């Protein structure tokens, strides 16, 4: 019996014929493209020799397509819990955020009252108002102002500032790149560069923002910065925000620095030529000492690192003519690649600056956030800073620049005297320890380490591994508070209050533990200035000595705990 061949359904025939026609035209099209023929021949040959390979390659192509199409955040998506609208609403109703800032605790409220209220200018003698009683005490010797050279109340500086305000008003009303650059801004940049011996300068609206804006311009991921382990907060934050690799060396320990650099050298030998900086201060805000710049420059030149020097506290105070740490060591400014500093201190004005070579400054004009996105300094501030610089330069001994400048000499003498009185005092030597050096215009005094030990206080508060830094990592705001730190500061505040009764205003280090990356020790702080007379300083010493003895003289564990409970 003859059987009829089974008929294929018609639509399959149609589909097959369309597919084969499409396939054919695709192949022909490919063949017509330049070089397409070779590709087709190659694929044909490979398929003939190894059909498995074609299969694997198609799989691979599919996998690649899937990979590219997959969401970048698919991991996060997977982590998500799927919830119904009702459940979401319930969760929203249940959610209670913590307060936006923790309310001040009862035992830290005293810190608010410890900020003195001053009437009139921040000069040598001030009128202080008691925040509670409103009682005013006049003629108080002021050791809190950072206007070391008293430029802020200098008649010439005032006169020039007033003239500029009559010419240009108060505010600059615009960022420097948009009509916010005035002739006086350019002048002060030139003056700063000339005064410090650099090629060019640039100014910022605020000193604290300057390093956090300058450093990230030149450091990105993969770059290296080696930072002194005692720098001020602005520099810590600057290193942090740059997102580069940060290494810390022990404070002022150049041997340790050299060791770190030589270890790094081996690691870096084969890598790409990334940017490398050493960050340190001219006069440490937290210690009142300086690095050995001569050796530091030798080290950085040997290892081909660049130096970032923060001269906020040293410009106007160190060196015969106030040109900062390099002048002390006789090192040209060109050896220091980046210098930042403040015009709000010795220069009696406001704002920060950065000086260095042309390329470095030019890059900041478009890359430095605080420069680009912020209004210029008020023009009169530029004039005030320029005038201060001119005053210092004019007073310089032209024949012998190494001779101390008469404008700065009183400051140095006063600083030295203040340091000597406290450092060599017999009555205080068991109670306090002077941390700063003789040339520092800022006197740092800590409670004597033996006394601190007997009180059961740690060597330093906060810093790596401390419970405060752990609390910061975990976001436990209530644990940012350190009872001992608070009480030790409170004890120092008692000294300050006693001094104020004797008409001497001094201050203490006010550092916020949870912001600091490095360990902190509370200190009493005295800012010297050029207008104090010897009698002023001796009088102040007597008052402070008595206050310290009164408060710390009979301080023991029991009394310390009583302070804690009293708060």
């Amino acid at each position, binding site marked *: 019996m003859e059987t009829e061949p089974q008929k294929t359904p018609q639509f399959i025939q149609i589909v097959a014929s369309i597919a084969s026609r499409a396939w054919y035209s695709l192949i022909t099209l490919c063949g017509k493209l330049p070089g397409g023929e070779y590709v087709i021949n190659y694929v044909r040959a490979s398929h003939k020799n190894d059909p498995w390979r074609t299969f694997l390659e198609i799989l691979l192509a599919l996998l690649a397509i899937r990979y590219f199409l997959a969401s970048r955040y698919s991991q996060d998506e997977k982590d998500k819990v799927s919830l119904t609208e009702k459940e979401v609403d319930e*969760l929203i109703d249940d959610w209670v955020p913590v307060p*936006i800032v923790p309310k*001040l605790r009862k035992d830290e409220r005293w810190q608010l009252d410890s900020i003195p209220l001053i009437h009139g200018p921040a000069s040598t003698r001030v009128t202080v108002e008691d925040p509670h009683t409103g009682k005013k005490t006049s003629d108080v010797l002021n050791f809190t102002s950072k206007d070391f050279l008293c430029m802020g109340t200098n008649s010439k500086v005032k006169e020039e500032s007033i003239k500029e305000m009559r010419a240009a008003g*108060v*505010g600059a009303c615009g960022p420097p790149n*948009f*009509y916010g650059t*005035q002739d006086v801004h*350019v002048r002060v940049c030139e003056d700063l560069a000339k005064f410090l011996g650099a090629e060019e300068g640039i100014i910022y609206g*605020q000193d604290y923002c300057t390093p956090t804006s300058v450093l990230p311009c030149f450091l990105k991921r993969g770059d290296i910065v080696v930072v002194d382990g005692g720098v001020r907060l602005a520099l810590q934050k600057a290193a942090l925000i740059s997102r580069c690799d940060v290494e810390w060396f022990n404070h002022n320990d150049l041997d340790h620095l050299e060791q770190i650099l030589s270890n790094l050298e081996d690691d870096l030998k084969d890598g790409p030529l990334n940017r490398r900086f050493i960050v340190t201060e001219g006069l440490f805000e937290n210690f009142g000492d300086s690095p050995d710049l001569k050796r530091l420059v030798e080290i950085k030149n040997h290892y081909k690192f660049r130096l970032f020097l923060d001269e906020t506290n040293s410009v106007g105070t160190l060196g015969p003519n106030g040109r900062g740490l390099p002048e002390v060591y006789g090192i040209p400014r060109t050896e220091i690649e980046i210098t930042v500093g403040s015009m709000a201190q010795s220069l009696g004005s406001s704002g920060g600056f950065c000086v260095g070579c042309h390329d470095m400054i030019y890059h900041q004009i478009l890359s430095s956030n605080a420069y680009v996105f912020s209004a210029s300094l008020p023009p009169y501030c530029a004039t005030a800073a320029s005038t201060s610089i001119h005053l210092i330069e004019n007073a310089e001994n032209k024949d012998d620049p190494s001779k101390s400048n008469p404008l700065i000499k009183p400051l140095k003498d006063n600083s030295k005297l203040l340091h000597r009185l406290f450092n060599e005092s017999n009555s205080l030597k068991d109670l306090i320890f002077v941390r700063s050096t003789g040339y520092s215009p800022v006197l740092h005094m800590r409670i004597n380490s033996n006394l601190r030990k007997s009180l059961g206080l740690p060597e330093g508060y906060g810093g790596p591994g401390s419970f405060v830094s752990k609390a910061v990592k975990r976001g436990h705001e209530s644990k940012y508070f350190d009872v001992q730190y608070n009480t030790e500061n409170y004890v120092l505040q008692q000294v300050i209050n006693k001094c104020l009764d004797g008409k001497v205003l001094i201050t203490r280090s006010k550092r916020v533990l949870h912001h600091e990356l490095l360990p902190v020790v509370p200190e009493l702080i005295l800012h010297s200035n050029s207008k104090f007379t010897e009698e002023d300083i001796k009088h102040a010493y007597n008052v402070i000595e008595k206050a310290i003895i009164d408060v710390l003289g009979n301080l023991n564990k029991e009394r310390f705990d009583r302070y804690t409970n009293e708060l």
Partner: protein
Amino acid sequence: MSLKADANLDLSKWSTRLPDAPADGRSDEEKAEMEFGRLTSEKWLSIAKCDPDHPFKAPIADEPPYFVVIMTYLNYLVMILIGHIRDFLGMLFTPQNYKAMLPQNGYPPWYASFESFYPRRLKGRMDDCFARPIHGVPGRYTYCFNRVSPDGNKNFYYDGSSTPCLNLSSYNYLGFAQSVGRCTDDSIDSVRTHGTSAGGPCDVAGHSDLLRSTEKTIAKFVGKDDSLIFSMGYGTNAHLFTSLLNSKCLVISDSLNHSSTRFGIRLSGAAVKVFPHNDMAALESIIRESISQGQTKTHRPWKKILVCVEGLYSMEGEYCNLPAVVALRERYKFYLFIDEAHSIGALGEHGRGVTEYFNIPSSKIDIMMGTLTKSFGAAGGYIAATQDIIDRLRVDFTTNIYGETPPPPVLQQIQTSMRIVAGELNGNEGKERLERIAFNSRYLRLGLKRLGYIVYGNDDSPVIPALLYTPAKMPAASRMFLKYGIAIVIVGYPATALITSRIRFCVSSALTKEDIDRILAVANLIGDKMCLKFGSGMAGGEHHPGDWKKGIRPRWSLEEVLAKTPEDCKKEMY
């Protein structure tokens, strides 16, 4: 004015050193008129108030024609290509010009060539339009030094002269940039009584009486318990968030927030989510998801959620949809931070900013930040909040404790100008300033729209961005406006999206109606010459219907604009 150096121009008398401001021989009256024009008629006043029924109206956004978009991209493509070719050849043959980008004696380059590609190859070609040095008060007129550059903006040569230009470039909203008048007199007195410097951080060196009273003035002005003042607006935001947030907190930030806010958030280590500019639906969905999902991986609830918005976005001239944000805050219990850098003083019937404009009590906003540079002619920024928050920040805010305090004259300027605006000093002067900026903003904005410009932003905003698109038109516009004696600001990538390069007119109370007439006349001329009129007409109230099929767009002639707009702009019609 910056001219392209003429081949015949003798540069021997010109100098690369920026000259000092020339001696000023004008009388106080002449000076005052150049700094703050007298009001010419009571008619040219208006009040910045929103329609209570429709508080927030999204501005009409015109789209540019396709050919403009394509041309813009092409423009960038050509510039980038040529730039790279020049870089490649330059580094090969003249490495001495590329020192900063090449390794030197074993030292790594200062910056990578790609990092500086945009500044060198694109911005460098129009450097004469940026950082134009000025002298004197940036008031109604600003004095630009004349300069030329014979070598492609590498060096500028000055002859010592300057040109007064009508000033639409300074953030001088209420016209307080003045060298005569109550504000400056008071500030000068404060130099005499308090000196020029604050003498250090206020927590350490002490609060001055001036600082305390200025803090109180600001707090009262914005309607909060207390405030803190900082010497730099950028620094206020840059260091605020470390005191508020930690890694277990979430920030939801508008995509157009200012760089200082973004920097501050980054420094705080908090998690960040960004919502598209003013998109309230997106904001709500992000909030819902964040609260219900909690922190990534652990799914623990966020400790705090902070939403950051700006009162007036300075690049777009748009205000934030505050009524909607506040309504969301009621429902979702997040904290609200608002940056009033550009809106404080410039918006609202009494200049109290965007909260007053939308009639929202300041208690609905947790942290109010603002700057004092713009409307008050001073410098710095402030934070205003409840007493509890300010007390905490006083002992926790890094700028307060480690950074400088604003100097006395700046504080005095803030205090006096703010009291004038509040009507406590000089009678009606504050009211006049507020009504003048409201009128000037509305008039210039509507006028430009009717001329055919594509203008972004809301009606009452004193920032008026007019779109240019093609990057090559940026320097052209800036130079041409300057030729006609008008100083404008041009902004392009990276401050804006790549294709939306723009002119930014910053209006001031110091301008008179006649000044704005002049600006419109010049804008009309330049708009025709440079082909800038792409508006569809719907934003300005169509006058001639145009013929869409033939591509003729509805336009108003300059005469019609000048005749009708001053009255029309006061109405709530567009």
